[in-house]
């Protein structure tokens, strides 16, 4: 059982076993990275947030009390940090004259080497990037992370009804934009 395994790994880490933390990172790092990547739309920001989240986990795991699942807690941290990064980017963009150059640099640093894939990714990022934050997060969690509305509600603290409405609007915009791009 995944929750029991997490519990055991956290217990071992709290007791001083550093390899347990490594196992936790290996277990969750891809989901952390991809959630941040889909929220932020570029690799550099996603990498920064991923590292931040791992460091937060390392420092705060000792205080984790299993009131919620470890997975929900980690998601909440990644999601909050990603939203904060989006807001910081928004503030930076107000003052930055080299925003275009910066965004080009960011998109060119993707870890994937395949050009065709990068183009597809950039197109997808552009579609998702235009969604309002609340629609974006529920679309990513539902469509890519395949989370239930109840799980998303635990992570975001929003009602299931509101999440369904947000997902509906996100789906509508995404499908419209996909049609336009064809």
């Amino acid at each position: 059982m995944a929750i029991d395994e997490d519990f055991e790994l956290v217990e071992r880490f709290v007791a001083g076993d550093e390899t347990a933390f490594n196992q936790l990172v290996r277990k969750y790092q891809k989901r952390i990275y991809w959630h941040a990547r889909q929220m932020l739309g570029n690799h550099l920001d996603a990498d920064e947030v991923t590292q931040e989240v791992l460091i937060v986990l390392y420092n705060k795991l000792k205080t984790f009390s299993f009131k919620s699942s470890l997975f929900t807690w980690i998601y909440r941290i990644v999601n909050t940090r990603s939203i904060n990064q989006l807001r910081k980017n928004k503030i930076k963009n107000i003052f930055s004259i080299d925003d275009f150059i910066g965004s080009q640099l960011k998109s060119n640093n993707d870890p994937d080497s395949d050009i065709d894939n990068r183009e597809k990714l950039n197109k997808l990022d552009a579609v998702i990037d235009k969604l309002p934050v609340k629609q974006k997060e529920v679309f990513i969690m539902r469509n890519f992370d395949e989370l239930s509305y109840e799980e998303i509600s635990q992570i975001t603290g929003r009602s299931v009804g509101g999440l369904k409405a947000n997902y509906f609007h996100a789906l509508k915009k995404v499908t419209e934009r996909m049609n336009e791009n064809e």
Partner: protein
Amino acid sequence: MLKYLSGLLEGKEKSDFEKMLESSSQARDEFNTLKNRLAVMKDVYESSVDESYFNGLLPRMREKLDKSPRPFFSGKLAYIIPVAAVILIMTLFIPRSGNDSRNLDLSDIVNQMVDGSDSTELSYNLLEGMEQSAWVNSEAENPFEVVIPEHWDIQADNYAATLEMPVIDEINGLANLPNDKLDQIYKNLASLK
């Protein structure tokens, strides 16, 4: 179709839609096409995973962790001292009065910083610190209104830098603000440029 996928259809509406899908091959094709397109989006991301990036993540994080200094202050001091420093720095840049000026309303952020903290004592200290600083313009109707002279272009950058300070995030001053308040702040910042 989108309502069904979003889980917004219930009861009779839902069963009617499912019956329609069963009976109409055109609707079924359309529905499957939509589902496939959404699934393809997921595949694009998953097929882009570069294992070498993930293999290097843990060592890089460990390296960063080793280099990061231990916090000099802990507990409440970790919040109070940086906030006090921000207030002092702002004091150097903001005049106590001025006729030719525009107003930037910080009350929401200040209130959130105070309300967002989990300690009454910490809230009191923050509030007391701000009341004693030049953040507070006693002549304004709103006690937390900051007055910024029009010719000081540097103010907007300073303010943006202040918003980005980790302590503001930690106290959730910015993170908890509703979108309309944030938009207003962005507009204020843009107007200062």
